[in-house]
Protein backbone atom coordinates (compact mmCIF):
# COMPACT_ATOMS: atom_id res chain seq x y z
CA UNK A 1 0.00 0.00 0.00
CA UNK A 2 1.35 3.37 -0.93
CA UNK A 3 1.36 5.36 2.26
CA UNK A 4 2.79 8.60 0.92
CA UNK A 5 -0.62 10.23 0.38
CA UNK A 6 -1.48 9.42 4.00
CA UNK A 7 1.79 10.88 5.19
CA UNK A 8 1.16 14.05 3.26
CA UNK A 9 -2.36 14.33 4.64
CA UNK A 10 -0.93 13.87 8.13
CA UNK A 11 1.53 16.65 7.52
CA UNK A 12 -1.20 18.87 6.16
CA UNK A 13 -3.53 18.40 9.13
CA UNK A 14 -0.70 19.05 11.57
CA UNK A 15 0.32 22.08 9.53
CA UNK A 16 -3.17 23.58 9.74
CA UNK A 17 -3.25 23.18 13.47
CA UNK A 18 0.21 24.70 13.79
CA UNK A 19 -0.85 27.57 11.59
CA UNK A 20 -3.89 28.36 13.69
CA UNK A 21 -1.75 28.12 16.78
CA UNK A 22 0.98 30.43 15.59
CA UNK A 23 -0.65 32.90 13.23
CA UNK A 24 -1.84 35.08 16.07
CA UNK A 25 1.52 34.89 17.79
CA UNK A 26 3.33 35.93 14.63
CA UNK A 27 1.16 38.99 14.17
CA UNK A 28 1.33 40.16 17.77
CA UNK A 29 5.06 39.55 17.91
CA UNK A 30 5.63 41.35 14.65
CA UNK A 31 3.31 44.22 15.43
CA UNK A 32 3.81 44.74 19.09
CA UNK A 33 7.12 43.03 19.73
CA UNK A 34 5.35 41.14 22.47
CA UNK A 35 6.38 37.53 22.59
CA UNK A 36 3.38 36.27 24.47
CA UNK A 37 4.52 33.05 26.12
CA UNK A 38 0.99 32.64 27.44
CA UNK A 39 -0.21 32.22 23.86
CA UNK A 40 0.07 28.48 24.41
CA UNK A 41 -2.16 28.91 27.45
CA UNK A 42 -4.91 30.24 25.15
CA UNK A 43 -4.56 27.06 23.14
CA UNK A 44 -4.82 24.92 26.26
CA UNK A 45 -7.66 26.85 27.86
CA UNK A 46 -9.51 26.98 24.54
CA UNK A 47 -9.48 23.20 24.57
CA UNK A 48 -10.67 22.97 28.17
CA UNK A 49 -13.41 25.56 27.78
CA UNK A 50 -14.59 23.95 24.56
CA UNK A 51 -14.77 20.68 26.45
CA UNK A 52 -16.65 22.26 29.34
CA UNK A 53 -19.25 23.85 27.04
CA UNK A 54 -19.65 20.66 25.05
CA UNK A 55 -20.23 18.59 28.18
CA UNK A 56 -23.12 20.87 29.07
CA UNK A 57 -24.65 21.44 25.65
CA UNK A 58 -23.45 18.50 23.51
CA UNK A 59 -23.08 21.08 20.74
CA UNK A 60 -19.72 21.02 18.98
CA UNK A 61 -20.22 24.28 17.13
CA UNK A 62 -21.12 26.05 20.36
CA UNK A 63 -18.01 24.59 21.97
CA UNK A 64 -15.82 26.03 19.22
CA UNK A 65 -17.54 29.39 19.49
CA UNK A 66 -17.17 29.47 23.25
CA UNK A 67 -13.48 28.60 23.02
CA UNK A 68 -12.83 31.35 20.51
CA UNK A 69 -14.88 33.99 22.30
CA UNK A 70 -13.55 33.28 25.77
CA UNK A 71 -9.96 33.38 24.61
CA UNK A 72 -10.54 36.60 22.70
CA UNK A 73 -11.77 38.07 25.95
CA UNK A 74 -8.87 36.56 27.86
CA UNK A 75 -6.40 37.97 25.39
CA UNK A 76 -7.94 41.38 25.58
CA UNK A 77 -7.79 41.30 29.37
CA UNK A 78 -4.21 40.08 29.43
CA UNK A 79 -3.18 42.86 27.13
CA UNK A 80 -5.26 45.61 28.68
CA UNK A 81 -4.51 44.88 32.31
CA UNK A 82 -0.93 43.71 32.18
CA UNK A 83 0.78 44.45 28.90
CA UNK A 84 -0.53 47.81 27.77
CA UNK A 85 1.65 49.60 30.31
CA UNK A 86 4.83 48.50 28.60
CA UNK A 87 6.19 50.31 25.62
CA UNK A 88 7.50 48.60 22.53
CA UNK A 89 11.07 48.69 23.78
CA UNK A 90 10.29 46.72 26.91
CA UNK A 91 10.46 43.36 25.20
CA UNK A 92 11.95 41.39 28.02
CA UNK A 93 9.63 42.33 30.86
CA UNK A 94 6.67 41.38 28.68
CA UNK A 95 8.16 38.03 27.80
CA UNK A 96 8.91 37.23 31.41
CA UNK A 97 5.55 38.43 32.64
CA UNK A 98 3.71 36.31 30.08
CA UNK A 99 5.95 33.41 31.04
CA UNK A 100 4.69 33.79 34.59
CA UNK A 101 1.14 33.83 33.19
CA UNK A 102 1.87 30.62 31.33
CA UNK A 103 2.89 28.90 34.56
CA UNK A 104 -0.13 30.25 36.43
CA UNK A 105 -2.57 29.24 33.70
CA UNK A 106 -1.10 25.76 33.45
CA UNK A 107 -1.46 25.12 37.17
CA UNK A 108 -4.89 26.74 37.35
CA UNK A 109 -6.09 24.42 34.59
CA UNK A 110 -4.72 21.46 36.53
CA UNK A 111 -6.58 22.58 39.63
CA UNK A 112 -9.88 23.03 37.80
CA UNK A 113 -9.86 20.09 35.42
CA UNK A 114 -7.44 17.66 37.03
CA UNK A 115 -4.60 15.71 35.51
CA UNK A 116 -6.38 13.24 33.27
CA UNK A 117 -6.23 13.34 29.50
CA UNK A 118 -9.63 14.51 28.32
CA UNK A 119 -11.34 14.20 25.01
CA UNK A 120 -13.78 16.42 23.16
CA UNK A 121 -15.82 14.12 20.93
CA UNK A 122 -16.54 15.58 17.50
CA UNK A 123 -20.05 15.55 16.06
CA UNK A 124 -21.16 12.18 14.69
CA UNK A 125 -20.86 13.44 11.14
CA UNK A 126 -17.15 13.94 11.59
CA UNK A 127 -16.37 10.78 13.46
CA UNK A 128 -14.60 7.75 12.09
CA UNK A 129 -12.78 7.20 8.83
CA UNK A 130 -13.63 8.46 5.37
CA UNK A 131 -12.95 6.32 2.32
CA UNK A 132 -11.24 8.42 -0.33
CA UNK A 133 -10.75 5.89 -3.05
CA UNK A 134 -7.47 4.16 -2.28
CA UNK A 135 -6.86 5.80 1.07
CA UNK A 136 -8.80 5.72 4.31
CA UNK A 137 -8.39 8.86 6.37
CA UNK A 138 -10.10 10.19 9.50
CA UNK A 139 -12.99 12.50 8.70
CA UNK A 140 -12.14 14.82 11.51
CA UNK A 141 -8.63 15.47 10.24
CA UNK A 142 -10.04 16.35 6.85
CA UNK A 143 -12.28 18.80 8.65
CA UNK A 144 -9.26 20.31 10.40
CA UNK A 145 -7.52 20.72 7.06
CA UNK A 146 -10.55 22.43 5.59
CA UNK A 147 -11.02 24.65 8.62
CA UNK A 148 -7.36 25.61 8.66
CA UNK A 149 -7.33 26.52 4.98
CA UNK A 150 -10.50 28.56 5.42
CA UNK A 151 -9.00 30.45 8.35
CA UNK A 152 -5.79 31.02 6.42
CA UNK A 153 -7.71 32.55 3.54
CA UNK A 154 -9.83 34.62 5.91
CA UNK A 155 -6.85 35.95 7.83
CA UNK A 156 -4.95 36.66 4.66
CA UNK A 157 -7.86 38.62 3.27
CA UNK A 158 -8.30 40.41 6.55
CA UNK A 159 -4.69 41.49 6.66
CA UNK A 160 -4.29 42.08 2.96
CA UNK A 161 -7.59 43.52 1.80
CA UNK A 162 -9.27 45.34 4.63
CA UNK A 163 -8.64 48.71 6.18
CA UNK A 164 -7.94 47.07 9.49
CA UNK A 165 -5.40 44.86 7.81
CA UNK A 166 -3.76 47.85 6.20
CA UNK A 167 -3.44 49.48 9.60
CA UNK A 168 -1.89 46.29 10.98
CA UNK A 169 0.59 46.09 8.15
CA UNK A 170 1.49 49.73 8.58
CA UNK A 171 1.97 49.22 12.29
CA UNK A 172 4.18 46.18 11.69
CA UNK A 173 6.36 48.07 9.26
CA UNK A 174 6.80 51.21 11.32
CA UNK A 175 4.79 51.87 14.44
CA UNK A 176 6.02 55.39 15.05
CA UNK A 177 5.13 56.64 11.60
CA UNK A 178 1.81 54.87 11.73
CA UNK A 179 1.03 56.72 14.90
CA UNK A 180 1.98 60.06 13.42
CA UNK A 181 -0.45 59.62 10.59
CA UNK A 182 -3.22 59.19 13.10
CA UNK A 183 -3.65 55.46 13.62
CA UNK A 184 -4.83 54.62 17.13
CA UNK A 185 -2.12 52.08 17.92
CA UNK A 186 -3.18 51.13 21.45
CA UNK A 187 -6.67 50.26 20.23
CA UNK A 188 -5.23 48.40 17.29
CA UNK A 189 -2.91 46.47 19.57
CA UNK A 190 -5.82 45.45 21.77
CA UNK A 191 -7.83 44.30 18.77
CA UNK A 192 -4.99 42.35 17.25
CA UNK A 193 -4.05 40.74 20.53
CA UNK A 194 -7.64 39.66 21.04
CA UNK A 195 -7.79 38.29 17.51
CA UNK A 196 -4.59 36.32 17.94
CA UNK A 197 -5.85 34.81 21.18
CA UNK A 198 -9.17 34.02 19.56
CA UNK A 199 -7.52 32.00 16.82
CA UNK A 200 -5.30 30.20 19.35
CA UNK A 201 -8.30 29.29 21.48
CA UNK A 202 -10.13 28.04 18.43
CA UNK A 203 -7.09 25.96 17.52
CA UNK A 204 -7.11 24.39 20.96
CA UNK A 205 -10.74 23.40 20.68
CA UNK A 206 -10.24 22.14 17.12
CA UNK A 207 -7.32 20.00 18.19
CA UNK A 208 -9.04 18.64 21.29
CA UNK A 209 -10.92 15.82 19.51
CA UNK A 210 -7.82 14.06 18.36
CA UNK A 211 -4.92 15.46 20.36
CA UNK A 212 -6.84 15.61 23.61
CA UNK A 213 -6.51 18.18 26.37
CA UNK A 214 -4.21 17.54 29.31
CA UNK A 215 -1.69 19.26 31.57
CA UNK A 216 1.51 19.83 29.70
CA UNK A 217 -0.20 20.33 26.33
CA UNK A 218 0.70 24.01 26.45
CA UNK A 219 4.40 23.34 26.80
CA UNK A 220 4.25 20.69 24.09
CA UNK A 221 2.79 23.13 21.57
CA UNK A 222 4.81 26.14 22.77
CA UNK A 223 7.98 24.85 21.25
CA UNK A 224 6.22 24.04 17.99
CA UNK A 225 4.80 27.54 17.82
CA UNK A 226 8.24 29.04 18.39
CA UNK A 227 9.71 26.92 15.66
CA UNK A 228 7.09 28.24 13.26
CA UNK A 229 7.76 31.85 14.31
CA UNK A 230 11.50 31.48 13.88
CA UNK A 231 11.22 29.74 10.52
CA UNK A 232 8.45 31.92 9.12
CA UNK A 233 9.49 35.22 10.56
CA UNK A 234 7.43 37.52 12.68
CA UNK A 235 4.61 39.72 11.53
CA UNK A 236 3.34 37.74 8.59
CA UNK A 237 0.35 35.45 8.14
CA UNK A 238 1.83 34.05 4.94
CA UNK A 239 5.09 33.41 6.77
CA UNK A 240 3.29 31.51 9.50
CA UNK A 241 1.47 29.45 6.85
CA UNK A 242 4.57 28.49 4.90
CA UNK A 243 6.53 27.80 8.07
CA UNK A 244 3.74 25.64 9.47
CA UNK A 245 3.86 23.53 6.33
CA UNK A 246 7.62 23.18 6.53
CA UNK A 247 7.74 22.36 10.23
CA UNK A 248 4.83 19.92 9.97
CA UNK A 249 6.40 18.25 6.97
CA UNK A 250 9.76 17.92 8.72
CA UNK A 251 8.09 16.53 11.81
CA UNK A 252 5.85 14.07 9.95
CA UNK A 253 8.46 12.78 7.56
CA UNK A 254 10.94 12.28 10.40
CA UNK A 255 8.40 10.38 12.47
CA UNK A 256 7.48 8.19 9.54
CA UNK A 257 10.86 7.39 8.06
CA UNK A 258 13.48 8.22 10.70
CA UNK A 259 11.69 7.84 14.04
CA UNK A 260 14.96 7.74 15.99
CA UNK A 261 15.39 11.44 15.24
CA UNK A 262 11.83 12.44 16.11
CA UNK A 263 12.91 14.55 19.05
CA UNK A 264 15.07 16.66 16.79
CA UNK A 265 12.82 17.04 13.79
CA UNK A 266 11.88 20.65 14.37
CA UNK A 267 15.41 21.80 15.04
CA UNK A 268 16.64 21.16 11.53
CA UNK A 269 14.46 23.78 9.80
CA UNK A 270 15.12 26.14 12.70
CA UNK A 271 18.87 25.76 12.51
CA UNK A 272 18.86 26.16 8.73
CA UNK A 273 16.84 29.36 8.88
CA UNK A 274 19.00 30.82 11.62
CA UNK A 275 22.12 30.02 9.72
CA UNK A 276 21.05 31.51 6.41
CA UNK A 277 18.17 33.90 7.04
CA UNK A 278 17.85 34.86 10.70
CA UNK A 279 14.90 37.12 10.06
CA UNK A 280 12.83 34.17 8.98
CA UNK A 281 11.45 33.31 5.56
CA UNK A 282 8.91 36.10 5.28
CA UNK A 283 9.67 38.09 8.39
CA UNK A 284 8.74 41.70 8.28
CA UNK A 285 9.28 43.50 11.56
CA UNK A 286 12.57 45.29 11.92
Amino acid at each position, binding site marked *: MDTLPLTLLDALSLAMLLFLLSAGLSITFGLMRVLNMAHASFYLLGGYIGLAVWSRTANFGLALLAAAASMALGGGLLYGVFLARFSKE*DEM*PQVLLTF*GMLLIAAEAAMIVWGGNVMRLPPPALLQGPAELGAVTYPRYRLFVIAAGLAMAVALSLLIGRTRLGAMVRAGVDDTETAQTIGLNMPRLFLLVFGLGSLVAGLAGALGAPYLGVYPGLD*FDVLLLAFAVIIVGGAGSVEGAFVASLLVALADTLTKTYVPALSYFSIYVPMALILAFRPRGLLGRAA
Partner: protein
Amino acid sequence: MTRPLAAAAAGLTLAALLPFAVPAYFVDILSRVLVFAMLAMGLNLLAGYAGLPSLGQAAFMATGAYTAALLIRKLEVGFAAASLAGVLLAAAVGAVFGLIALRARGATFLLITLALAQSVWAVAFTWRSLTRGDDGLGSIPRPELGWLPWPMADARAYYFLVLIVFLALLAAFAVLVRSPFGLALQGIRDNEQRMRSLGYNTWLYLYTAFIIAAGYAGVAGVLRAYLVGAVVPGWSQVDPSAEALLMVIMGGPGTVIGPLVGAAIIEPVAEMANLFTRHWPLVLGALYVVVILGAPEGIVGWLRRRLPARASRPAASERPSEGLAAAAPGEAI
Protein backbone atom coordinates in the same frame (compact mmCIF):
# COMPACT_ATOMS: atom_id res chain seq x y z
CA MET B 1 33.64 52.08 51.27
CA THR B 2 33.35 50.43 54.67
CA ARG B 3 29.67 49.60 54.22
CA PRO B 4 30.18 46.99 51.50
CA LEU B 5 33.12 45.55 53.44
CA ALA B 6 31.06 45.24 56.61
CA ALA B 7 28.25 43.62 54.65
CA ALA B 8 30.70 41.19 53.08
CA ALA B 9 32.20 40.26 56.43
CA ALA B 10 28.76 39.70 57.91
CA GLY B 11 27.75 37.58 54.94
CA LEU B 12 30.85 35.45 55.18
CA THR B 13 30.37 34.87 58.88
CA LEU B 14 26.78 33.86 58.28
CA ALA B 15 27.79 31.50 55.49
CA ALA B 16 30.39 29.86 57.73
CA LEU B 17 28.12 29.45 60.73
CA LEU B 18 24.90 28.48 58.98
CA PRO B 19 25.65 24.77 58.39
CA PHE B 20 26.04 24.30 62.12
CA ALA B 21 22.83 26.07 63.00
CA VAL B 22 20.47 24.08 60.78
CA PRO B 23 19.39 20.44 60.83
CA ALA B 24 21.64 18.03 58.93
CA TYR B 25 19.31 17.49 55.96
CA PHE B 26 19.13 21.22 55.40
CA VAL B 27 22.87 21.57 54.78
CA ASP B 28 22.47 19.91 51.39
CA ILE B 29 19.84 22.50 50.57
CA LEU B 30 22.36 25.22 51.46
CA SER B 31 24.86 23.65 49.09
CA ARG B 32 22.20 23.59 46.42
CA VAL B 33 21.49 27.28 47.00
CA LEU B 34 25.15 28.03 46.28
CA VAL B 35 25.12 25.82 43.21
CA PHE B 36 22.11 27.63 41.80
CA ALA B 37 23.62 30.96 42.80
CA MET B 38 26.55 30.12 40.54
CA LEU B 39 24.22 29.20 37.71
CA ALA B 40 22.31 32.42 38.23
CA MET B 41 25.54 34.42 38.42
CA GLY B 42 26.53 33.30 34.96
CA LEU B 43 23.07 34.10 33.71
CA ASN B 44 23.26 37.49 35.37
CA LEU B 45 26.27 38.33 33.23
CA LEU B 46 24.16 37.62 30.15
CA ALA B 47 20.81 38.94 31.31
CA GLY B 48 21.66 41.65 33.80
CA TYR B 49 24.86 43.09 32.37
CA ALA B 50 24.65 42.26 28.67
CA GLY B 51 20.91 42.61 28.39
CA LEU B 52 20.32 39.12 26.94
CA PRO B 53 18.03 37.05 29.14
CA SER B 54 18.34 33.40 28.26
CA LEU B 55 16.25 30.31 29.03
CA GLY B 56 19.01 27.93 28.03
CA GLN B 57 21.57 28.02 30.82
CA ALA B 58 20.48 24.69 32.24
CA ALA B 59 21.78 22.99 29.11
CA PHE B 60 25.35 24.00 30.00
CA MET B 61 24.85 22.93 33.58
CA ALA B 62 23.76 19.52 32.36
CA THR B 63 26.70 19.32 29.95
CA GLY B 64 29.17 19.96 32.74
CA ALA B 65 27.44 17.49 35.04
CA TYR B 66 27.21 14.69 32.46
CA THR B 67 30.80 15.15 31.32
CA ALA B 68 32.21 14.92 34.83
CA ALA B 69 29.91 12.03 35.70
CA LEU B 70 30.79 10.01 32.63
CA LEU B 71 34.53 10.56 33.02
CA ILE B 72 34.42 9.48 36.65
CA ARG B 73 32.14 6.48 36.16
CA LYS B 74 33.25 5.08 32.84
CA LEU B 75 36.89 6.12 32.57
CA GLU B 76 37.69 6.44 36.27
CA VAL B 77 39.27 9.83 35.76
CA GLY B 78 40.25 11.81 38.84
CA PHE B 79 38.01 14.53 40.21
CA ALA B 80 40.19 17.46 39.29
CA ALA B 81 40.51 16.38 35.68
CA ALA B 82 36.85 15.41 35.41
CA SER B 83 35.68 18.69 36.86
CA LEU B 84 37.91 20.71 34.57
CA ALA B 85 36.75 18.73 31.57
CA GLY B 86 33.14 19.36 32.57
CA VAL B 87 33.60 23.10 32.75
CA LEU B 88 35.57 23.25 29.51
CA LEU B 89 33.04 21.18 27.60
CA ALA B 90 30.20 23.34 28.91
CA ALA B 91 32.04 26.42 27.70
CA ALA B 92 32.73 24.73 24.35
CA VAL B 93 29.05 23.93 23.87
CA GLY B 94 28.38 27.54 24.81
CA ALA B 95 30.78 28.61 22.09
CA VAL B 96 28.83 26.61 19.52
CA PHE B 97 25.38 27.67 20.73
CA GLY B 98 26.48 31.28 20.99
CA LEU B 99 27.19 31.33 17.27
CA ILE B 100 23.60 30.32 16.59
CA ALA B 101 21.79 32.27 19.26
CA LEU B 102 23.57 35.55 18.70
CA ARG B 103 22.18 35.76 15.19
CA ALA B 104 19.28 37.42 17.00
CA ARG B 105 18.57 39.61 19.98
CA GLY B 106 15.80 40.13 22.47
CA ALA B 107 12.84 37.78 22.48
CA THR B 108 14.03 35.85 19.44
CA PHE B 109 17.35 35.24 21.20
CA LEU B 110 15.38 33.93 24.15
CA LEU B 111 13.42 31.53 21.93
CA ILE B 112 16.57 30.23 20.35
CA THR B 113 18.25 29.56 23.69
CA LEU B 114 15.12 27.70 24.74
CA ALA B 115 15.14 25.57 21.62
CA LEU B 116 18.86 24.84 21.93
CA ALA B 117 18.46 23.79 25.56
CA GLN B 118 15.60 21.49 24.58
CA SER B 119 17.83 19.86 21.99
CA VAL B 120 20.43 19.16 24.69
CA TRP B 121 17.69 17.58 26.74
CA ALA B 122 16.67 15.49 23.76
CA VAL B 123 20.24 14.26 23.35
CA ALA B 124 20.54 13.40 27.06
CA PHE B 125 17.19 11.67 26.91
CA THR B 126 17.64 9.58 23.78
CA TRP B 127 21.36 8.77 23.75
CA ARG B 128 20.74 5.98 26.19
CA SER B 129 23.96 4.10 25.57
CA LEU B 130 25.87 7.11 26.85
CA THR B 131 23.64 8.80 29.39
CA ARG B 132 21.26 5.95 30.34
CA GLY B 133 18.53 8.36 29.33
CA ASP B 134 15.72 8.74 31.79
CA ASP B 135 17.33 6.37 34.30
CA GLY B 136 20.11 8.82 34.87
CA LEU B 137 23.72 8.30 35.85
CA GLY B 138 23.95 7.35 39.50
CA SER B 139 26.60 6.20 41.95
CA ILE B 140 28.74 9.29 41.56
CA PRO B 141 30.98 9.55 44.60
CA ARG B 142 31.97 12.79 46.30
CA PRO B 143 35.39 14.21 45.43
CA GLU B 144 38.18 12.89 47.60
CA LEU B 145 40.46 15.59 48.90
CA GLY B 146 42.97 13.49 50.80
CA TRP B 147 44.80 16.49 52.14
CA LEU B 148 41.74 17.55 54.16
CA PRO B 149 40.87 15.74 57.41
CA TRP B 150 37.12 15.75 56.66
CA PRO B 151 35.50 13.35 54.17
CA MET B 152 33.50 15.07 51.46
CA ALA B 153 30.74 12.54 52.03
CA ASP B 154 29.86 14.63 55.08
CA ALA B 155 27.28 17.22 54.09
CA ARG B 156 28.95 20.04 55.99
CA ALA B 157 32.41 19.36 54.60
CA TYR B 158 31.07 19.37 51.06
CA TYR B 159 29.19 22.58 51.74
CA PHE B 160 32.45 24.34 52.56
CA LEU B 161 34.04 23.08 49.37
CA VAL B 162 31.11 24.48 47.40
CA LEU B 163 31.30 27.72 49.37
CA ILE B 164 34.97 28.19 48.51
CA VAL B 165 34.32 27.65 44.81
CA PHE B 166 31.38 30.03 44.98
CA LEU B 167 33.43 32.78 46.61
CA ALA B 168 36.11 32.38 43.98
CA LEU B 169 33.53 32.71 41.20
CA LEU B 170 31.96 35.67 42.98
CA ALA B 171 35.27 37.48 43.24
CA ALA B 172 36.01 36.82 39.58
CA PHE B 173 32.56 38.11 38.69
CA ALA B 174 32.97 41.31 40.69
CA VAL B 175 36.28 42.01 39.01
CA LEU B 176 34.87 41.19 35.58
CA VAL B 177 31.91 43.54 35.71
CA ARG B 178 34.01 46.44 36.91
CA SER B 179 36.59 45.88 34.21
CA PRO B 180 36.49 47.66 30.84
CA PHE B 181 34.95 44.48 29.45
CA GLY B 182 32.13 44.62 31.95
CA LEU B 183 31.50 48.30 31.36
CA ALA B 184 31.42 47.76 27.63
CA LEU B 185 28.86 45.00 28.11
CA GLN B 186 26.63 47.34 30.02
CA GLY B 187 27.02 49.92 27.32
CA ILE B 188 25.88 47.34 24.79
CA ARG B 189 22.95 46.47 26.99
CA ASP B 190 21.88 50.10 27.12
CA ASN B 191 22.33 50.79 23.44
CA GLU B 192 24.05 48.36 21.11
CA GLN B 193 23.78 50.65 18.11
CA ARG B 194 25.63 53.42 19.88
CA MET B 195 28.42 51.12 21.00
CA ARG B 196 28.82 49.84 17.48
CA SER B 197 29.03 53.33 16.10
CA LEU B 198 31.74 54.00 18.67
CA GLY B 199 33.73 51.22 17.09
CA TYR B 200 33.12 48.33 19.47
CA ASN B 201 32.76 44.85 18.05
CA THR B 202 29.58 44.29 20.04
CA TRP B 203 29.06 40.75 18.78
CA LEU B 204 32.43 39.68 20.16
CA TYR B 205 31.68 41.11 23.58
CA LEU B 206 28.31 39.38 23.72
CA TYR B 207 29.80 36.13 22.46
CA THR B 208 32.46 36.21 25.16
CA ALA B 209 29.85 36.87 27.81
CA PHE B 210 27.81 33.94 26.46
CA ILE B 211 30.77 31.59 26.80
CA ILE B 212 31.64 32.80 30.29
CA ALA B 213 28.03 32.30 31.37
CA ALA B 214 28.15 28.79 29.98
CA GLY B 215 31.35 28.14 31.91
CA TYR B 216 29.77 29.28 35.17
CA ALA B 217 26.84 26.99 34.49
CA GLY B 218 29.31 24.17 33.87
CA VAL B 219 30.92 24.68 37.28
CA ALA B 220 27.48 24.62 38.87
CA GLY B 221 26.67 21.41 37.03
CA VAL B 222 29.82 19.62 38.13
CA LEU B 223 29.30 20.54 41.75
CA ARG B 224 25.67 19.53 41.60
CA ALA B 225 26.59 16.11 40.20
CA TYR B 226 28.84 15.42 43.19
CA LEU B 227 26.28 16.84 45.60
CA VAL B 228 23.42 14.64 44.44
CA GLY B 229 25.56 11.69 43.37
CA ALA B 230 23.61 11.44 40.13
CA VAL B 231 22.79 13.27 36.88
CA VAL B 232 19.42 13.14 35.12
CA PRO B 233 18.21 14.63 31.80
CA GLY B 234 15.75 16.89 33.62
CA TRP B 235 18.69 19.09 34.61
CA SER B 236 18.81 20.49 31.08
CA GLN B 237 15.15 21.38 30.73
CA VAL B 238 13.44 24.70 30.84
CA ASP B 239 12.41 24.45 34.50
CA PRO B 240 15.84 25.01 36.08
CA SER B 241 16.56 27.67 33.45
CA ALA B 242 13.34 29.44 34.30
CA GLU B 243 14.09 29.27 38.01
CA ALA B 244 17.58 30.63 37.45
CA LEU B 245 16.18 33.54 35.43
CA LEU B 246 13.70 34.31 38.16
CA MET B 247 16.54 34.24 40.69
CA VAL B 248 18.35 36.83 38.63
CA ILE B 249 15.45 39.19 38.11
CA MET B 250 14.17 38.80 41.64
CA GLY B 251 17.54 39.12 43.31
CA GLY B 252 18.58 42.05 41.22
CA PRO B 253 19.76 41.96 37.62
CA GLY B 254 22.91 43.92 37.04
CA THR B 255 24.05 43.56 40.64
CA VAL B 256 26.81 41.28 41.87
CA ILE B 257 25.09 39.56 44.80
CA GLY B 258 21.59 39.71 43.32
CA PRO B 259 21.78 36.10 42.07
CA LEU B 260 22.78 34.83 45.51
CA VAL B 261 19.86 36.63 47.10
CA GLY B 262 17.53 35.26 44.45
CA ALA B 263 18.84 31.72 44.85
CA ALA B 264 18.68 31.93 48.64
CA ILE B 265 15.00 32.76 48.37
CA ILE B 266 13.79 30.69 45.43
CA GLU B 267 15.65 27.43 46.01
CA PRO B 268 14.47 26.68 49.57
CA VAL B 269 10.99 27.92 48.72
CA ALA B 270 10.84 25.67 45.67
CA GLU B 271 11.91 22.73 47.76
CA MET B 272 9.67 23.40 50.70
CA ALA B 273 6.79 24.58 48.56
CA ASN B 274 4.95 21.35 49.16
CA LEU B 275 4.71 22.24 52.81
CA PHE B 276 2.34 25.13 52.31
CA THR B 277 0.88 24.59 48.89
CA ARG B 278 0.53 21.78 46.40
CA HIS B 279 0.81 24.25 43.57
CA TRP B 280 4.38 25.42 43.34
CA PRO B 281 4.12 26.34 39.63
CA LEU B 282 1.38 28.78 40.58
CA VAL B 283 3.61 30.42 43.15
CA LEU B 284 6.53 30.54 40.72
CA GLY B 285 4.38 32.13 38.03
CA ALA B 286 2.91 34.61 40.46
CA LEU B 287 6.39 35.58 41.63
CA TYR B 288 7.38 36.28 38.04
CA VAL B 289 4.38 38.53 37.55
CA VAL B 290 4.76 40.31 40.87
CA VAL B 291 8.46 40.96 40.41
CA ILE B 292 8.13 42.22 36.86
CA LEU B 293 5.28 44.52 37.70
CA GLY B 294 6.41 45.76 41.07
CA ALA B 295 10.13 45.35 41.55
CA PRO B 296 11.85 44.98 38.20
CA GLU B 297 15.14 46.07 39.71
CA GLY B 298 15.02 43.12 42.09
CA ILE B 299 15.51 42.97 45.81
CA VAL B 300 19.08 44.22 45.87
CA GLY B 301 18.19 47.10 43.59
CA TRP B 302 15.20 47.93 45.75
CA LEU B 303 17.29 47.85 48.90
CA ARG B 304 19.92 50.04 47.37
CA ARG B 305 17.35 52.64 46.46
CA ARG B 306 16.17 52.84 49.99
CA LEU B 307 19.44 52.81 51.85
CA PRO B 308 21.21 56.16 51.76
CA ALA B 309 24.79 55.78 50.57
CA ARG B 310 26.98 57.68 48.16
CA ALA B 311 25.53 61.05 47.22
CA SER B 312 26.35 60.56 43.57
CA ARG B 313 23.83 57.72 43.19
CA PRO B 314 21.65 58.34 40.13
CA ALA B 315 17.94 58.68 40.77
CA ALA B 316 15.85 55.63 39.96
CA SER B 317 13.54 56.07 37.00
CA GLU B 318 9.91 55.00 36.97
CA ARG B 319 10.12 52.86 33.82
CA PRO B 320 9.14 49.27 34.57
CA SER B 321 11.95 47.98 32.40
CA GLU B 322 14.51 49.68 34.56
CA GLY B 323 15.83 46.58 36.22
CA LEU B 324 16.49 44.54 33.14
CA ALA B 325 17.47 47.19 30.66
CA ALA B 326 19.11 49.90 32.65
CA ALA B 327 20.60 49.00 35.99
CA ALA B 328 23.11 51.70 36.80
CA PRO B 329 26.50 50.56 35.60
CA GLY B 330 29.50 50.25 37.81
CA GLU B 331 27.68 49.67 41.08
CA ALA B 332 29.76 48.48 43.99
CA ILE B 333 27.72 45.45 44.98
